[in-house]
């Protein structure tokens, strides 16, 4: 009975892959038709061939790798700072009930505020450069991690805590043996969301006011009206973001047994 079920699953998977591939070709053809239809001003929608050519050229351009390295560095530092602070606040708020109750509403309601509006303030503090971009990324990454950790600490089973106390576990042992395993999933979720928000924060800061990074590269293409290159770079940015997201999804649970 197992064999037919597996083969039908494989068939369904192959069908989905065929449909995805056909849909992709369909999108390219549709794009080409729109580009040729003359609905938009010339150059606004470049042909799919021009975009593919630009993709090929950018892929062999040293500037792409230098700017990617800048953005990756900024995002990594922003996540470390933002998620680190979010984790610390979440743990403190979870461990000390009055702190959690007093400040959690502020975190909860400030989280959906568009962080980009803080850019002028951060520019005053850090000037044009790495500092401002990292600070905006860190601010963006802070909230999802703080919220996820606060919720995680609160969801720890009280029975486990009582069992721990009945065995006279120290605070450190409670943290390592009970809280840490229970917090693994929410912290990973916070990290994943934090990554997405940090990336957006850093790239927007690069677009708005910067002299390096993928966002800066995109706005340079826009300013010079190099549309095929701009579309191609957006494809690259989305692929990089999607790839990094998938990596977080795939690697972390395996490594930490989630």
């Amino acid at each position, binding site marked *: 009975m197992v064999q037919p079920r597996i083969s039908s699953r494989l068939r369904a998977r192959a069908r989905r892959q065929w449909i*995805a591939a056909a849909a992709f070709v369909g999108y390219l053809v549709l794009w080409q038709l729109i580009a040729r239809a003359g609905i938009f001003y010339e150059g606004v929608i470049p042909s799919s061939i021009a975009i593919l050519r630009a993709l090929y050229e950018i892929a062999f351009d040293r500037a792409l790798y230098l700017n990617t390295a800048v953005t990756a560095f900024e995002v990594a530092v922003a996540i470390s700072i933002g998620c680190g602070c979010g984790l610390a606040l979440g743990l403190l708020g979870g461990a000390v009930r*009055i702190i959690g109750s*007093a400040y959690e*509403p502020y975190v909860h309601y400030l989280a959906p505020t568009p962080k980009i509006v803080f850019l*002028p*303030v951060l520019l005053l503090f850090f000037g044009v450069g790495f500092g401002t971009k990292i600070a905006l990324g860190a601010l963006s990454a802070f909230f999802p991690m703080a919220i996820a950790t606060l919720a995680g600490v609160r969801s720890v089973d009280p029975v486990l805590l009582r069992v721990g106390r009945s065995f006279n576990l120290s605070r450190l042992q409670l943290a390592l043996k009970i809280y840490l395993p229970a917090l693994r999933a929410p912290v990973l979720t916070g990290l994943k969301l934090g990554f997405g928000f940090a990336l957006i924060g850093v790239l*927007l800061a690069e677009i708005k006011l910067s002299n390096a990074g993928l966002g800066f590269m995109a706005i340079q293409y826009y300013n010079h009206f190099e549309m095929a290159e701009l579309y191609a770079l957006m494809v690259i940015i989305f692929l990089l973001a*999607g790839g990094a997201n998938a990596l977080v999804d795939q690697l972390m649970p395996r490594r930490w047994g989630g």
Partner: protein
Amino acid sequence: MRGPTILGLATVAAAAVLLELLVASGVLPAYIFVRPSAILFSIVGLFREEALLERLLVTLGATLLSAAMAVVSGVSLGWALHRCRLLDEIFGTWIAALAAAPLILLYPLFLVVFGRGEPTIIAMAYVASLVAMTLKTRDGLAGVRSVLRAVGSSFRVTSAQLFWKIELPAAAPAIFTGIRLALIFALINVIGIEFMINDGGIGGLIADLADRYEVPSMYAAILFVVLASVAFFWATERAERWFNPA
């Protein structure tokens, strides 16, 4: 008022007083840090000279318009994906991928297509909200219990009746969550794009004030964005609970 609430408010008040004293005494530089009293005084000027209320209304109008468009088309698209398996297989994966993609970064492309102004702001917010609305509707409809559909079939309802009388009410909780997400995404994107392109409502005003280096007014406008976002988020949360008490 409960103890933790008082502690939270007292912390904010204490931080404001401390900042006022540190800036007034020259410990913190006045060209970066602004006295909270100066921010409060500049609010009057924002209303009189910068038309803050009108700017807020522009932002709110763009948010509601883009969210409304996203709700109408998102519910329709979600329903279509639910009904037609082939359609779901063609577009479903791509729409799910878009949900995790940093869509706001596409705004330079939207600028080229729609020009620098309200159409770009609304179109960008619409796309960002549409994805959440579509996915929530599709998932809500997919989660409708089959026994409800079976009851409908036993009464020989038409497919239109099945949708309006059974599927839509049963999927309402997920759709309400989608509407709330659409509203929040629309607001975030509207303010964000206004700021990025220096145009439109309150986001454009902040960028404008920053360019003119009117620091106290800029801080006051940012404070308004924070307050407006908090109020909006609170209101949508309450509305969702009211419509969907379960």
